[in-house]
């Protein structure tokens, strides 16, 4: 009982938009598609919806082959990055539009529209036109349209990207509640790793038309299969460096030597790519940090309660993200401390995680 993509691929001319991919989304699940712009999130969603046909492969829904089925026959709803509503319909008529097309009777339409409006706090503006609403309210209307018809599949394509910060936070908190208790499969595309972590559920990381990993969000984050997944699922970007493990030591940058730690000690001697997430690099030594890096400060970004420091270490940029305010002068020489035990070891040739 799920949506299954079996060896789905999409090519347009000589370009491959989606490499052969298989994915099973269970009923009632919340799934995040995480990837940069042009990673193929929208294409994959449109294939799931039936707006685009895959070049090859099969799509099954509840065991039935729906590959060639047009979107109208699939009971799907979709929310876009742009706020898409019928421009000359009132909010009420906009929310009611999919039900009217389905030919539902008026009393039932009203009951459902009111319920959706209540959930999305749109009741006071049901009579207004979309052009008289704020961006947040316009997107709420579009979301209400998507949930009103009890779709089997609800696709949200970066729905919060065009909203300003405060409205985004607000709607981001409400979204999971809206879909809880529904039997629909929800797919949410985003470029922001933090959104995926916030929503939980499952996450599929996409890179250049390939799904690099799919699984429960927390395990995808903590235990990425390979370096690409770790890179997609890290913001600021994960720090990587070539290390040589010899005995219980890691030789880094040719000069620094770190203890191999809990994870590294178990590995055979050899060369690895070590990935360290920015929040495991701190400006001050703590009781878990065991390594050090030195370099020239390139950028410091101090937000209310957080410091992000970019350090140039022999040509590589290292990023540290830490709580508290740590002012560093740009251009000065600094030493940062690394929690090596939280490092991820990847094979330098295949990119697969080995630890």
């Amino acid at each position: 009982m799920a949506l299954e993509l079996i060896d789905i691929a999409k090519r347009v001319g000589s370009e491959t938009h989606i490499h052969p991919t298989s994915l099973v989304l269970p009923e009632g699940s919340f799934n995040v598609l995480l990837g940069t712009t042009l990673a193929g999130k929208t294409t994959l969603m449109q294939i799931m919806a039936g707006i685009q046909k895959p070049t090859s492969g099969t799509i099954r829904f509840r065991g039935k082959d729906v590959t060639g089925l047009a979107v109208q026959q699939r009971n799907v709803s979709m929310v876009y990055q742009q706020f898409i509503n019928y421009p000359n319909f009132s909010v009420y008529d906009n929310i009611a539009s999919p039900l009217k097309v389905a030919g539902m009777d008026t009393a039932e339409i009203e009951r459902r529209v009111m319920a959706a409006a209540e959930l999305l706090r749109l009741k006071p503006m049901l009579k207004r036109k979309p052009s008289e609403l704020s961006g947040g309210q316009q997107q709420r209307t579009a979301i209400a349209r998507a949930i009103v018809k009890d779709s089997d599949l609800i696709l949200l394509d970066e729905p919060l990207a065009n909203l300003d910060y405060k409205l985004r936070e607000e709607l981001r908190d409400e979204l999971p509640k809206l879909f809880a208790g529904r039997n629909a499969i929800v797919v949410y595309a985003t470029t922001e790793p933090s959104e995926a972590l916030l929503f939980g559920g499952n996450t599929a990381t996409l890179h250049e038309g390939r799904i690099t990993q799919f699984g429960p969000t927390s395990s995808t984050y903590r235990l990425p299969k390979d370096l690409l997944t770790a890179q997609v699922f890290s913001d600021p970007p994960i720090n990587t460096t070539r290390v040589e493990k010899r005995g219980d030591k890691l030789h880094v940058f040719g000069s620094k030597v770190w203890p191999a730690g809990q994870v590294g000690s178990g590995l055979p001697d050899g060369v690895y790519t070590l990935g360290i997430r920015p929040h495991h690099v701190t400006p001050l030594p703590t009781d878990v940090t065991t390594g050090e890096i030195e370099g020239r400060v390139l950028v410091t970004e101090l937000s209310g309660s957080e410091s992000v420091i970019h350090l140039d270490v022999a040509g590589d940029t290292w990023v540290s993200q830490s709580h508290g305010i740590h002012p560093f002068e740009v251009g000065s020489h600094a030493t940062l401390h690394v929690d090596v035990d939280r490092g991820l070891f990847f094979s330098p040739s295949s990119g697969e995680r080995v630890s």
Partner: protein
Amino acid sequence: MNKVVNNRAWWLVLPVFAMVLFNALLPLMTVVNYSLQETFGNNEFFWSGAIWFEQLLHDDQFHASLLRQIIFTSIVLVIQIPLGLAIALCMPRSGPWVSVCLVLLALPLLVPWNVVGSMWNIMALPDIGLLGKAINSLGIPYNYTRQPISAWFTVVLMDVWHWTSLVVLLCYAGLVAIPDAYYQAAKVDGAKPWAVFRYIQLPKLKHVLTIAILLRFMDSFMIYTEVIVLTGGGPGSTTKFLSIDLVQKALGGFDLGPAAAFSIVYFLIILLVSWLFYTLMMRDEAK
């Protein structure tokens, strides 16, 4: 607040004032001047009050050409706006054919107006013209220099050929500006093509269509060159539109006073209709 009063800034807008003065205000005031006075040359003027205006409003010839003008503009709008919209809807949205279509459509707009008149004049000649000969060979009597209906048909056809492209280009630009997501959303909803047109494309094209109708109204209401070259206002005075009437009065009769009054009334009609139309179309937005 520290607001510095600096009157020197006025010097910066002075060139614009000067331009408007010479371009618009002075000529307009000259016309107003003529319309209220009587002159027999020698730079002698006598105050005549509103006589020319009263005369004009009771002038049957003016009524006739105003009526012709209204009919012509209405026909042209009724044909060109839907036709232009329809062509724009049929045009491809992407691919190599887009530029081919656009170039072909833009061609009529690039032809000088008197050349348009001459082209259609020759083409519609009943004995040797492609169009005239073809219609006659179908057994339909056609002669635009003799039959009023033929003349009207040719004038309207010429204007449609010349200006529908403008409507197409405006509508096409409006259509292309609608994000793809709207069409997808409609598809997801299961909306039929007619519903997509009625509830997405048409509302989104409202501003563009308003501009298209305004431009076409003003332009067709002032049509002169093409018609004077094609029919000269004939046969008789069956295609004598307002501007032709005006030029005949001003240059032919050298009745500067009446012609000036005519110009002002002409100008006010266009201004009033445009303003009314624009206000009505944009009423919803203001709320």
